[in-house]
């Protein structure tokens, strides 16, 4: 592979990793706080993308479409938490997986009904619909914008988690729910907020990613499988760990597709297996 091509592939990998981060940040936070794995998270991503697509068609405003995608995700997250997940907290733990799996089936068929099976493509907004020249090769500006957005979200989340009272509340909940409740923290409210925030990021990511991933039925499952791999490999607990793992997975997926096209989807899961053998709590997880 020539150097310019290699560089653009690496950038592609980073951009994809950033999209994964938008998805996995919420997933790993929910896992840490509530001990649930939300398999419907990929569906928020896909539905967010579709809602953004429809909004873009109706209003012709890309920013409004992004907001609509995020809002759709947050709304779905709110519904999931409030009306479904609340009933299964504290049970064995597999109920939540089965419930969210069922929800994702429903959301996927609902999307099939509303947006049909035709794959949709979204054009990047006009002010980003151009390309830079990198070492003589053109590179689309939109992918660089995704990298920038991912970075901004990471910094924002980091600031939120480490520097604000809300973040401290969430961290308290992750560490010790009973103690946090004892200190007067409204844990059910924190759960709902975290769910909405995670789902917002997923829906937001779904539309932001639409110009490069496209929108099609089955996207939900493709992304959730990668995000699950991220959560296992990275372990729960640190936002930085989540970002690093996302970039690793994004890079290995993209480079894998270029270097060994037929083994691409295998590479990530081999990494998962190896990490679990060597360090079952994940690369950045705390040993519990």
């Amino acid at each position, binding site marked *: 592979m020539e150097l310019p091509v290699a560089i653009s592939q690496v950038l592609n990998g980073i951009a994809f990793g950033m999209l994964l981060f938008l998805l996995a940040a919420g997933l790993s936070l929910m*896992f840490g706080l509530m*001990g*649930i*794995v939300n398999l419907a998270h990929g569906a928020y991503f896909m539905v967010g993308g579709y809602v953004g697509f429809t909004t873009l068609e109706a209003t012709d405003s890309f920013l409004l479409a992004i907001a609509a995608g995020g809002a759709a995700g947050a709304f779905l997250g709110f519904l999931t938490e409030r009306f*479904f997940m609340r*009933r*299964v907290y504290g049970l*064995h*733990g*597999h*109920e939540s*997986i*089965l*419930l969210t*799996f*069922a*929800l*994702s*089936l*429903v959301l*996927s*068929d*609902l999307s*099939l*009904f509303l947006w049909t099976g035709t794959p949709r493509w979204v054009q990047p907004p006009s002010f980003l619909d151009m390309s830079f020249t990198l070492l003589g090769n053109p590179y689309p500006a939109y992918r660089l914008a995704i990298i920038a957005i991912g970075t901004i979200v990471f910094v924002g989340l980091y600031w939120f988690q480490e520097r604000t009272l809300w973040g401290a509340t969430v961290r308290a909940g992750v560490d010790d729910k009973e103690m946090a409740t004892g200190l007067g923290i409204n844990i059910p409210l924190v759960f709902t907020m975290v769910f909405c925030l995670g789902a917002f990021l997923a829906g937001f990511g779904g539309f932001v990613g639409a110009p490069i991933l496209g929108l099609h039925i089955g996207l939900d499952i493709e992304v959730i*499988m990668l995000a*699950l*791999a991220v*959560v*296992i490999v990275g372990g729960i607990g640190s936002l930085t760990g989540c970002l690093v793992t996302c970039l690793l997975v994004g890079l290995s997926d993209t480079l894998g597709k270029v270097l060994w096209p*037929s*083994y691409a*989807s*295998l590479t990530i*899961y*081999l990494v*998962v*297996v190896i990490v*679990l*053998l060597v360090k*079952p709590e994940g690369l950045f997880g705390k040993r519990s």
Partner: protein
Amino acid sequence: MEKAAYRWKSIPVAMAGIAAVLMVPLLPDYAVTLATSIIIYSIYVTSANLLTGYTGLVSLGQAMFWGSGAYVVAILTTRAHVTNLYLIALICLVTVVLLSAFFGALALRVKRLYFMIVTFAFGHVVWCIAMYPMQRITFGYDGIKDIARPYLGFSLSTASGVSFYYFVVMVAAICFFGMRLVINSPFGHALVGIRDNEHRMMALGYNTYLYKYISYMLSAVIAGTAGALFAYFNGYVNPSELHWLWSGDALMMMFIGGVGTFWGPLWGALAYTGLRYWLSSYTMYWFGIEGIIFICVVLFFRGGIAGFVGNLRRRLSGGSTEGR
């Protein structure tokens, strides 16, 4: 006393059940086909039930064993032209035991939700391996077709739908009987103990890892048996047999039927297959409807059909339902 009375009462029910199963071939052909698939699925769901219902391990990787059973049969009969059913069964058994011994040893290093995700990841790895590196043998997405029905020896052929149905019933009877023996044995009781409180079982001196490991392999063997039957039944095997969505379906059928109950898998397979057969002629949104049913089961009928029937029977017999 009460138990003995219950035994006597259950004899007519059992007789009626056996008669119903044996009389299915009097129905039209499509019903025989449907019944065959239901029985095969119930074997598959029983394998998940042994693992989840009795051992407390939720696996999202059962399709790996179902699919490998199916693919071994498909490859041996169509590519290697092996016709001896017993040889094929032996090779299936060895394959599934080796696979489960390998993946079980790895997956059981982690617990609870991680176990579920890890079995899912393993299932996906096996799916990918079957799809790409082994594409020459498995024909990738095209799948393998033209699998002939097995010849049992003693000039017994299973080429017709009815004879194959009886063959499946026989294998299912062996599986269910074996399952009954396992769960009523000290080993089975230890599994339930591990499901309910693993630490206590450890304190009692049980090597819980070994118990879970054996349970995992047993369940893989049952799933592989079901998959092998399915390959013969369908005459065609494709990658969806290995796909994790099919593992998810096992869990669905199990939860619909009733987790940790002996006949739950049969009820679950019956309800699932019947509903799918009936609904698919009306709508293409089968998955969504399946999802809605499943949400209702998880939220409102956690005991599934078996739990519901059990409650109903207790209520009808005038017994107290308190304390349940």
